[in-house]
Structure formats: structure tokens, C-alpha cells
């Protein structure tokens, strides 16, 4: 079988670049795709005519777009969809197997992410209602509407949403998908190892009747990414701080960096910690521990040693296995050097004192493992003496968490920025402090895993508010 070619998509039109990269599976030389690479100048040139793409999408009503989402969801989940305009297609099973080979996610987690994306397609109406706070979603068609009896006018902030995607988890694509239902075309820069999910989502949308012009797909380099960030009126940027720092003060760019999500157990609930262990485990290890909504810190007022030991004992059961196995929980690293860097960093920070690798006592093997040529890191629970320890508030791309004892009344002050905080407490003062804290993006009250997502809630900013801004509207009587 020939290796499929993944073209650049220029507002829906396939373009074969003379610069192509080969995508191979982890620990293998088997080429899985040839990917056309796009030069920055070409992106720049295309973005100058993005208004035309937006006009094509806006020609559809909000109701039509929501119907398309419904149909696309089914196609995404079950369909055999085109990979290119050259006759290559991909079935559901091929998608799962190929994505697993390049991203390291086991099949079971790919399926789970698929289901998550399907939920977004299928439940788009509810998601838009949540993002628009119950306002009639047809407001985006004309810009005019009414909310709570008050006339409102919303104007798009951009003619395209740029998205600089990561490779770590297919589920992140669910964040940009509502843009299409909101009538805003997307300009996607896929992660190097993960072109498959954005491609399948786009193919499903197009097969369901969405104008192809609404989709631009630019596998590109840093210079190309910078053009997307600079030229799209609004962009979602995924990456670590080395990538996102440069855009931290750019209001046009919504940053999806490290989550540094946390679980806090209040002093009122700490004696029940055993009961909450499943929530802690799920928070740390769901989705292979790869998501920004996985907990990387567990703050407790006491019982730190016992909690760390119990978590370590359970997580030590997670071992690399055949990615096709239904019990697989760990993901391989697509980039071996990244796994080596993380392992070395943890060892060095522990060697410097103030922290103990509790899992080391429960697993028989070193943290860094290899299975059929693919690098893995075994789950790691670190018990830190202080919240100031370098590992106490650090996120890594595998099941890793630090357990730290922090006085109940200092938790909010000391925890630092957190994408998700699960607060297992009924203490009114602690809850009040959390609801007022600028460091919390999503607050789960009670034993809800940090990894749990309610789709009617915004994620790291509200996409509708990023893409539309309310303007004053005053009409003369009978006008």
C-alpha cells in the first residue's frame, strides 16, 4: 500500500507542497504519511483573502450549521472519510490505529477521545447555549438579537480563528470546533505527530455539507505558526511556556499552556481521603496523564505521606502494554528526547532534596521504560516537603503528581495558577477564597476529577467571547 499524502488545505483547496515530511510511527521506520509542508509566505498570502471564506460560511444559517454538526459527528465517529483528494480514505479503525502509532496513545484512549469529540459535534447546540449564556444562537447570523429583554448586537472579532495545535491529545480539537458553528472559519496548524484528528474533523464537517472554504490546514514550521498568530484576528495557542510566553500579553491570542491543575482537600474532608482516592487517581492518570486538566499537584492539610503512598501503590499497577489492549492506560512518548528530559529533570530535582519519589518503592522498574521501541515513563508520585519545591507545581506529559501538605488557610494563596481546581471541601471560607481567586480557571466543587468536562462550561476562556464582541446598539423608535 502506498503511503498517503496529506496536502495543505488552502481555504478548502488541496495544495501539494514541494516540501514534504515523512511521518513514521513511534519506534518504527514505517512511513505512515507524507505531509505537505507549507511555507510562511503562502499562509500570509492566503490570510489576505480570509473574508471570502468567512462569507461562504456565513451564507449558512445557524440552524443549518448545527444540522451539519450533527451529521458530521456521526461521520467522524463511524465514517470512512477522505484523507486527501487523491483517493486515499481512512476508516474509523484505521484512524485509531494510525493515531496510536504516531501519538503514542493506546487505542482505548483514542476511542475515548473520539467519543469526546463526537459529544461536541452532537451536542453543539448545548455547547453554544453554554458559551452564549442562553442567548438565542441565531444572534451570530445577523449580529442582532435580544438577551434578557435587552437588544444586543454582536460583531465578529475576526474572519478566521487560528489554531496552533499540540500533538499530545486529540481531545484538544474539541475546543476549536464550535467556531464553525459560530460561523467563523478555522486556520489550523496541526502538531507534528497529530495531523489525523484535525483532518478527520475537517473531513467530517465537509462531508456533512460544510463549505470547504471554512477550513485551512497548514502543516508548517515556527515561522508559519508565527504568521497564523500574527495575522489571524484571534488564535488559540497550545504549547508550553517557552512557546506561549511571547503571546502572554496579546489579547488576540488565547493561550492553552500547561494546566498545572490541582486537587485540594480541605481539613474538613481530609480524614475521608481514602474515599476520595478514586477521584485523585482519575485526576492524575485519566487520558494517560497527558491533558492540561490532569492534576499535577495534590494539596492537603495533613496525611500527605499516607495519601502519596496509597496513590503510588495504585499507580504502580499501570505498566506499558500493547497499545491495542483494552486495559492500556499509558501512552508512549512520540519524542524520545522529551521523555529522557523529563526523567532527568525529576531525578535531578529529587536529588537536590526536599522530595521523595514514593512510586519508586512500589514499582519494580526504573521510571523510563521501553516497549517495542517506544519510550514510556511510569507513573510517578512525588512527596514534596514544601509547596516551593520545584516539583510541587510542575506539570509533565505523563501521570505525575506531587503531594504537598499546605495549611488549610494558606492553600489558595500558595497554589499558583491552575487551569482546574477540584476542591474537596465544604468549608465556606475555602470555597469563597477559591471562587474569588484569579488563579483558578475552572472550579470543581466536591469529588469531581479534574479531568471531568461539562460541555456547557467554558474551557480556558469562552470561545464565543473570543470570536464575538458585544457592541452598543440603539435603535430609533419604529426604525
Amino acid at each position: 500500500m502506498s503511503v498517503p499524502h496529506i496536502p495543505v488545505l488552502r481555504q478548502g483547496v488541496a495544495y501539494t507542497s514541494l516540501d514534504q515530511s515523512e511521518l513514521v510511527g513511534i519506534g518504527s521506520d514505517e512511513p505512515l504519511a507524507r505531509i505537505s509542508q507549507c511555507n510562511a509566505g503562502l499562509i500570509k498570502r492566503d490570510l489576505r483573502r480570509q473574508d471570502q471564506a468567512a462569507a461562504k460560511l456565513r451564507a449558512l444559517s445557524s440552524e443549518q450549521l448545527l444540522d451539519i454538526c450533527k451529521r458530521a459527528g456521526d461521520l467522524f465517529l463511524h465514517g470512512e472519510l477522505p484523507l486527501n483528494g487523491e483517493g486515499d480514505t481512512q476508516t474509523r479503525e484505521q484512524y485509531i490505529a494510525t493515531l496510536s502509532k504516531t501519538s503514542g496513545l493506546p487505542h482505548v484512549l483514542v476511542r475515548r477521545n473520539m467519543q469526546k469529540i463526537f459529544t461536541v459535534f452532537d451536542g453543539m447546540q448545548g455547547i453554544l447555549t453554554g458559551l452564549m449564556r442562553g442567548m438565542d444562537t441565531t444572534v451570530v447570523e445577523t449580529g442582532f438579537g435580544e438577551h434578557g429583554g435587552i437588544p444586543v448586537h454582536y460583531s465578529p472579532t475576526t474572519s478566521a480563528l487560528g489554531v496552533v495545535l499540540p500533538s499530545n491529545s486529540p481531545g484538544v480539537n474539541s475546543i476549536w470546533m464550535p467556531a464553525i458553528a459560530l460561523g467563523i472559519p478555522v486556520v489550523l496548524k496541526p502538531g507534528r505527530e497529530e495531523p489525523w484528528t484535525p483532518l478527520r474533523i475537517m473531513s467530517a464537517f465537509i462531508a456533512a455539507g460544510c463549505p470547504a472554504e471554512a477550513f485551512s490546514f497548514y502543516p508548517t514550521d515556527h515561522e508559519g505558526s508565527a504568521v497564523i498568530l500574527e495575522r489571524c484576528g484571534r488564535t488559540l495557542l497550545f504549547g508550553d511556556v517557552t512557546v506561549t510566553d511571547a503571546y502572554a500579553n496579546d489579547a488576540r491570542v488565547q493561550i492553552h499552556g500547561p494546566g498545572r491543575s490541582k486537587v485540594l482537600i480541605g481539613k474538613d474532608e481530609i480524614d475521608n481521603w481514602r474515599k476520595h482516592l478514586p477521584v485523585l487517581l482519575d485526576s492524575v492518570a485519566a487520558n494517560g496523564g497527558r491533558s492540561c486538566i490532569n492534576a499535577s499537584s495534590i494539596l492537603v492539610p495533613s496525611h500527605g505521606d499516607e495519601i502519596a503512598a496509597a496513590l503510588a501503590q495504585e499507580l504502580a499497577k499501570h505498566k506499558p502494554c500493547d497499545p491495542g489492549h483494552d486495559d492500556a492506560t499509558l501512552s508512549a512518548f512520540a519524542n524520545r528526547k522529551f521523555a529522557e528530559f523529563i526523567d532527568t529533570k525529576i531525578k535531578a530535582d529529587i536529588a537536590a532534596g526536599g522530595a521523595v519519589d514514593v512510586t519508586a518503592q512500589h514499582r519494580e522498574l526504573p521510571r523510563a521504560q521501553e516497549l517495542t521501541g517506544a519510550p514510556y515513563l511510569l507513573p510517578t508520585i512525588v512527596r514534596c516537603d514544601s509547596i516551593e519545591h520545584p516539583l510541587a507545581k510542575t506539570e509533565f506529559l505523563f501521570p505525575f503528581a506531587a503531594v504537598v501538605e499546605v495549611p488549610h488557610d494558606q492553600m489558595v494563596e500558595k497554589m499558583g495558577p491552575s487551569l482546574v481546581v477540584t476542591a474537596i471541601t465544604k468549608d465556606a471560607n475555602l470555597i469563597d477564597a477559591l471562587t474569588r481567586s484569579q488563579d483558578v480557571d475552572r472550579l470543581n466543587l466536591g469529588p469531581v476529577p479534574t479531568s471531568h468536562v461539562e460541555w456547557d462550561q467554558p474551557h480556558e476562556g469562552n470561545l464565543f467571547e473570543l470570536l464575538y464582541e458585544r457592541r452598543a446598539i440603539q435603535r430609533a423608535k419604529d426604525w
Partner: protein
Amino acid sequence: MTTAPQSERPDLDTHVREIVRFHFSEETGTPHWLDWAKTCGWDPKQEIKSFADIVKFPHFDGELLRTEPHERWVPRAYKDRPYTIFETGGTTGMPKQRIGWDDYKTDYEQFSASLSDESFPPGGNWLMIGPTGPRRLRLAIEHLANFRGSSCYFVDLDPRWVKKLIKTKQFDQAKAYMAHVIDQAVLILEHRKVSALFTTPKLLEELGDRMSIIDAGIKGVFCGGTTMTPQTTRFICEELLEGQAEFVPTYGNTLMGLAAHRRTLREDNYSITYYAPQPRAVLRVVDPDATDNVVDYENWGRVELTTMTNEFFMPRFLERDEALRRAPCDAYPWDGVAEVRPFGAEAATIVEGVY
């Protein structure tokens, strides 16, 4: 592989003998080379019989162009004539300097024959957007335009300043400077009739982002300075120039002069092949680990430049570039260098193409 087809060409062999005789003879020779010959243990005048013998010379040490007094490079035959001093492109720190008299004129007059009158109309104005200052390029482009009966406007870009800005991560300043350069070019193009451009790929891209180059009346674009991948070249030809203006890439520098490209870009899938202006300069693509040897055709190797004029002799200078060795063609029956890029580009990310 050790045999280079260049050695089979009698005109090159005659030329190399004449040049070596010129630089190594007491009457006409260059002080640097005359002194070198006293210590090298062999007589270049006797032993260099063909270009194949050039490997008897060690690689030219480029540092000499920073450290040797200019007088050491003045052939005795030129001793009463003042010289021009040209500096290499974007170097920071003490630049390499080459002195010269008429070489740049000769090089560009010869090169002019490779330009078509349709794309670079005689009498039509030129605009150069790029490094001027102490570089040979500025005078050379103006001479080329003049030689073709044309005049040339200039917009300067100082690559040394751009490099400093990038090194100190002042990206906003670098962008602002680029915009400042392009603003000036747009102004000229909007108010003057210009039919030919000389610029770099990056500046051309920026210009194309601001205006239609075709609507501005440009018929030919002569371009050099940084790496041009096949995809970049295709983008320039098909999109920036809308398939309506001729694109003439060149590979050159102060030390060589300029190499012409094979005019079959589209047929070659936009993979640019350059041919040195033999016999005045010869490019070899050598094995980086055994630099006496050239690599096989279509293989990557390091670019080695030998410049051989009465004004300047520079044997076997290893450029900071690598390229594919490509076969001769009808127009240029000697080896070509293709897809030139910074040496080691495959292994590391190299900051290049700042302008």
C-alpha cells in the same frame, strides 16, 4: 569520487595555469602568495598544470581576509592603482574584506548575457532592495543596470543590524525595520516606473505582501542572498510573481562573483541549480570528511569555491554552505551546485534568511 569534469576542460586548465603564473611570479604576483610560495615546499607555477591540481593547495583560510593588510593582496601588476574595498554580507564583528578593481564589472557584464531583454528591458529602471553599504553588490547591481542601459534606485537594508536585533530577541524592532525598508520600496514603486528588481527572497515576500509586484510593472526579478528551497522558489514564481514575471535566482558573494541558474526552473520542479562563472570561479561540491574529493552527482556535500582572476586568487575556500552536486547542462558544461543551504542545515536549525 575524485574526478571532476572541470579538469577535462582545456580553457579552465589554461586559465588556472595563467592565473597561478600571474600571482606567483615576481613581476606580477601578489605579496601574500609570493611569501606563501617560499614556505610551502613546492612551486605552484611548475606543479599546477590543470584545475585537477588545485587540490595541491590547502583550503584558503578566510580569516586572512580579516587580518592581512590590504597591500598584501595587491598584485604587483596593480600596485599603482587605488582599489575598492568590499566586505562580506551579514558578518558581525570584523568583516572579511576583498579588494578589487574591475572584477565586479567584468563579472556582472558577463552575467548580463544570461538576462533576457524581455524580462530586464534595456533602458527600463531597476530597483535594488537589499544590503548596500560596503558590499560589492551595490556597485555591481548599478553597474549591471547601467551596462544594460538602465538606471537603478536603491533601498538599503543593513543585515548586520537585523542580525543584532534577532540575536538580542528584539523581534518587534526587526519587524519594524523590515516594514521601514519595504515602505521605502513601495514608495518608489508607486511613484516611479520600474521594470526590474534585485532583492532577497524574504524582502520579495514582504513586498508581495504589501502590493502586487506585477501590477507595479515588474517584469523580471533578480534574487539572491539566502536559501531558496524548491517550495520557496515555486511560491515566488507562481504566487508572488503570478507566473508573469521572470524569476532569476543567483548564488554569489563578494568572494566569488555570481553564479547563474539553469533556466528550467519549472521543469526542474523548482530545484535551483547554479553554475559558477567559470573559468573565473569554480565551485566544487566536496565530501566534508575528505575535501579533496567531490561527491557523486545528486549527493550533498560542502561547497568549495576557487576564485581565479588577475585581481584575486583564492583556492579552495570552504563556504559555509552545502549543496547537491549536479551535472553539467548545455548552457553551462561544468558541474552545478543545487539547493544551496547553510552547511549542517539538515542537522541543526540555523538562523538564516534574516533579510
